[in-house]
């Protein structure tokens, strides 16, 4: 091995040790103030979990050393080519985030604990500087059941353009507009595994508010969402206990899930009101809803057919339905190469129409997924959502590739065009951005 490589390898080992040392402490020491801050809003549940976190992570020797650490550190730069609509909003923006992960299993792998803290520092918007416990849970798996207790994350659904059915975890909306970043949710989850599928039962004590960009943040709604004015239908507010149940199974080429949720809606109704300073802001209002949902995918050769549908009552003064459906068709081995090209089309519909507190009430999404299948896992996803009524458009680009064995480079872009004054998307009209992110995995 050339001397240069040996020097690099030694440096990498040293860096690895450095990470090990830093991240053994970060979750409990460095993020202590964050956790304490969150504990205030969480109340007792969170306090107890924080104590558990501290106990587990600072346990002398045995547990902390027996488990395995992984995770990432990431630096991100967002370039905004257009001046913001509101002079308070920041310009180009630098941000760093970290998400270590600790995992330990015993009992022949039948029991485990997972701890995943997350923290972000953001230059221009202090609402985007935030920390969260993505996961802190104990799992017990038996032959025909699984029990998970603690803070966890659950994903339901099949479509690409939006995630209608996915309701267990709150969206960490300051992270990304795509709704794929989620806040940790306290839960007791019991999965019953049978020949006829899996039944998941959830008790969800403690509600998480959606995160929104602050007055200085971008992209954000106009007027801004003031989370200080949050309203709840339930007098128990964040302490309301929610319930959910799901049956999921597959038959041949068909995978499906039927779910029910009762509790505080994850997406708030957005109410324009005047704040104490007499300025127009948006107050999020979280109502108690009942939601039935279906998610379905048929995997038929090169075609994936997808449907997500919900029926919700309790939000606003009427019951309503919403659905997303479409296909992804993959051309495998484009022009005799090993590249794959996926063509995606989905339609997004909400019965409430233009009044829906959603970006997508009657829209069409078309997308292209380009996968190189190379050693660096290079891929690119282009998506365009067009409003069928007012022709407003949202373009998103997500590309990534690995660099070496431990680094990953991602490029993301969002652009908004032809946004109409009466639509939620109008707030983002000057918030086109290009984002470059480099992450180090360990």
């Amino acid at each position, binding site marked *: 091995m050339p001397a240069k490589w040996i020097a690099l390898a030694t440096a990498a080992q040293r860096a690895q040790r450095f990470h090990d040392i830093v991240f053994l402490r970060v979750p409990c020491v460095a993020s202590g103030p964050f956790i304490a801050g969150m504990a205030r809003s969480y109340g007792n549940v969170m306090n107890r979990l924080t104590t558990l976190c501290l106990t587990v992570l600072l346990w002398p020797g045995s547990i902390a050393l027996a488990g395995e650490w*992984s995770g*990432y550190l990431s630096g991100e730069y967002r370039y905004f080519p257009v001046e913001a609509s509101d002079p308070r909003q920041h310009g180009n923006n630098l941000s760093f985030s970290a998400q270590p992960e600790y*995992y330990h*299993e015993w009992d022949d*792998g039948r029991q*485990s604990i997972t701890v995943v803290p997350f923290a972000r520092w953001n230059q221009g918007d202090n609402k985007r500087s935030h920390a969260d416990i993505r996961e802190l849970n104990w*799992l017990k*798996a038996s*032959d*025909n059941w*699984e029990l998970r207790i603690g803070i966890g*994350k*659950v*994903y339901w*659904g*099949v479509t690409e353009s939006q995630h209608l059915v996915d309701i267990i975890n709150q969206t960490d909306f300051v992270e990304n507009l795509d709704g*794929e970043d989620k806040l940790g949710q306290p839960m007791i989850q019991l*999965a019953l*595994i049978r020949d006829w599928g*899996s039944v998941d039962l959830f008790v969800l004590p403690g509600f998480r508010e959606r995160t929104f960009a602050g007055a200085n943040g971008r992209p954000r709604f106009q007027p801004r969402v003031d989370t200080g004015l949050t309203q709840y239908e339930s007098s128990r507010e964040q302490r309301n206990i929610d319930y959910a149940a799901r049956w*999921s199974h*597959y038959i041949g080429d068909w*995978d499906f899930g039927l779910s029910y949720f009762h509790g505080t809606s994850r997406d708030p109704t957005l109410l324009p009101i005047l704040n104490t300073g007499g300025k127009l802001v948006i107050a999020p209002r979280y109502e108690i809803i009942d939601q039935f949902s279906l998610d379905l*995918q048929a*995997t038929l*050769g*090169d*075609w*994936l057919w997808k449907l997500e549908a919900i029926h919700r009552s309790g939000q606003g003064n009427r019951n309503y339905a919403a659905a997303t459906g479409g296909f992804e068709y*993959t051309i*495998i*081995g484009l022009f005799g190469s*090993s590249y*794959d090209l996926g063509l995606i089309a989905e339609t997004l519909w909400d019965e409430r129409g233009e009044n829906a507190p959603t970006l997508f009430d009657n829209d069409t999404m078309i997308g292209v997924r380009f996968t190189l*299948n*190379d*050693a*660096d*896992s290079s891929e690119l996803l282009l998506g365009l959502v067009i409003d069928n009524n007012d022709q407003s458009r949202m373009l998103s680009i997500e590309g990534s590739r*690995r660099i*070496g*064995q*431990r680094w*990953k480079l991602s490029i993301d872009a969002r652009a908004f065009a032809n946004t109409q004054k009466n639509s939620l998307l109008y707030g983002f009209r000057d918030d086109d951005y290009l984002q470059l992110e480099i*992450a180090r*995995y*360990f």
Partner: protein
Amino acid sequence: MQKLPNSSLKRILPITLFGLSLLPLTANAESAEEKGLAIAIKADQLDTGWGDQTADLKMVLRNRHGQESTREIRSRTLEVEGDGDKSLSIFDDPRDVKGTAFLSFTHATKPDDQWLYLPALKRVKRISSNNKSGPFMGSEFAYEDITSQEVEKYTYKYLRDEDLDGRPTFVLERYPAYKHSGYTRLVTWLDKEMYQPLKMEFYDRKESLLKTLVSSDYKQYQGKFWRPGKMSMINHQTKKSTDLFWSNYRFKTGLTDRDFDRNSLKRAR
């Protein structure tokens, strides 16, 4: 003379499985196709009864300039009687895909069922199994090279006997009987003692030599099952190569169907 009935029984037994019409035939009167199939069936029978298997896999990918990248995967396989095997692969390295897991139910004749678990989103995604010819993890191994090799997935033709590096082998030609293969034929040098491949040549859809696989460092487990320690694939067209290093083979570890469902996929580590 004592041994004769036994050895002729061994030769006839696989043939009886094809149906009564083949019974009158002697070994000498076999066509090349029949002999090829008989050898494939024998190889399959010798490798039956292992129940379940776990192993660690390290992949070393090399591009045409010799630059390397590595993958670390743990694999679990469940033998399924009368159908293809079930397998679960868990990725440990590179770290950005750590926790990603791939669940596959192979089938002899109909398309395989495959799910992918993406840990960042906690999403289980059913994926199309049509991508048989695509690279596995960016390597020179295609999905169809690493999935369970059921007898019914190919038709066969015996070519000749040949010594390969001093070991007697059967040279067989195999033709994929499933759809979406990247190959027209595979030439296999099958060791006469182990009934395991020592070398394979893959011919692409244009009939040109695409890749050569050399399997070595075989060891016998449970007094019966042979497994390679190393598999080296060279792509002659791109000059890229991939080495697979297998270790920690364990058999009959007590895995069940429950370890190969979508719930176990989600908590695979």
